[in-house]
């Protein structure tokens, strides 16, 4: 049951992820990204990580992707490609290299994983308490730094927009 559900989800996930990259229309590409993130949330649910799944939907599909779509629709981008000063070959080469790096890392991770040795999740796994505890103890420094980064990202646009308005 669980395996079957995962296989279906994985197929859909890969399909929609490909659509994000390959679809020429930016709005539909963004819509596919919404679907990808949503499906990813369902994968989290299957893993028992309910908290992460819900946060994924709230933050990504509910807020970030909506803003993406908002901007794309406001700019009224058509099927044309975003103009750039770089030659296309260079861009594709760079993207390919980044992708290969990611794939390599993924293969290493999977190869080193303890496959076949399933461990039962501890009590309360994936709940708010567990997530909060690990966030505020083991990962408190990265957590705070991320907060700082996001704060900069919030203030930055305000400053930029104000300068343009003047």
């Amino acid at each position: 049951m669980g395996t079957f559900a995962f296989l279906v989800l994985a197929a859909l996930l890969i399909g929609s992820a490909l659509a994000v990259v390959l679809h020429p229309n930016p709005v539909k590409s963004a819509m596919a990204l919404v679907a990808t993130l949503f499906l990813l949330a369902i994968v989290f649910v299957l893993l028992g990580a309910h908290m992460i799944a819900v946060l994924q939907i709230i933050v990504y599909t509910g807020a970030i992707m909506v803003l993406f779509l908002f901007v794309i629709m406001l700019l009224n981008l058509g099927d044309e490609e975003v103009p750039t000063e770089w030659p296309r070959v260079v861009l594709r080469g760079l993207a390919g290299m980044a992708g290969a790096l990611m794939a390599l890392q993924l293969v290493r991770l999977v190869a080193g994983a303890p496959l076949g040795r399933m461990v039962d999740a501890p009590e309360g796994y994936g709940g708010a308490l567990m997530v909060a505890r690990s966030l505020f103890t083991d990962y408190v420094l990265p957590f705070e730094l991320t907060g700082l980064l996001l704060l900069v990202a919030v203030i930055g646009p305000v400053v930029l927009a104000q300068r343009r308005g003047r």
Partner: protein
Amino acid sequence: MSLGGFDVQVLRENGFATEEMTLNMGPQHPSTHGVLRFVVRADGEVMTEAVPDVGYLHRSIEKIAEKVGYHGFMPYTDRVDYVAAMPCNQGWAMVCEKLAGIEVPRRAEYCRVIACEFNRISSHLIAVGTMGMDIGAFTPFTHALREREHINDLLEELCGARLTFNYMRIGGVAWDLPPDFAEKGLAYIDRFEPLIDEYNALISFNKIYKERLINVAVITGEEAINYNLVGPNLRGSGVDFDVRRDIPYSIYPELQFDVPVGHGEEGTLGDCFDRYMVRIREIQESCKIIRQCLQQIPEGSVLAKIPRKFKPPVGDAYVRIESARGDMGWYCVSDGSEYPYRVKVRTGSFTATSIIEQVSRGLMIADLITVVASFDLVAPEIDR
């Protein structure tokens, strides 16, 4: 630019192409008060330009007059401004009387003023009601229309029609007041006057409503005169002019009434809220006028002796009356025959349309609706 649309301007900024949006508002749009069209150029929600396109309701009423004769044209005048048809009736009757030099019986003059003022109230009720509806509050509209229904009942007793009255005749009015009209009219006014305060409590002084109207589309007195705004739109900008008082006609000099003028009570002088409040106050003044008329109306006939074949002497005449939408001009040239040689109607909605392009710059799309409603535009009156 043309009314067919704008040449879309593509701005390239940081490599991204953005363009302004051309919006076609109307001729079928829920809040253009009839078939009126605007071509709006908008940058997101902010309008850079809104150009009115008139002519969708043109029915050649002025030309028809040349074919149907003086008496026969009276029903057509109802259609010039069907929200306030009585003043149009009166304008046509007065211009014909001026051409032929006819004296109207005093009772008929009273009947005319009573009918016109009732009609002014009902027209202003539509204006303030649709204002609320365009801002998004539906309840005030139905409450205003409920009161308008009572006025329609009264006018129906008077002339048998509820919208296009055809009540007046050259030289008087078609029918005398029904026997108990005075009592009914006074009873209605007594009931209606406190309701204005209730209406104000419901919507006029609502915080959200005021926020939507105050400081929107400010028109200075000078601008209003330059653009030839009339009636409540002109008075909303603080210009103290009312045809009924300043170029008196009919029995208005004998009546006691004030001319409400906007004074920027909540925001800037000449904003939408001022124009709106002027209408509310005018309703109250009309109630005063009707009360006086119903109390002082003299006995007598209501129609002067006019030949069936009405042939005014050669010449021309121009009369100005204060319709619900302001100074309405009726001009008629007679060549001595049974048919007018030329008729021209000058209406307030048409000139008000011309200033929309000027005031709508930099407003938001939602404000365009407010502006149109605050001018109390009636599409048939624009085009005739």
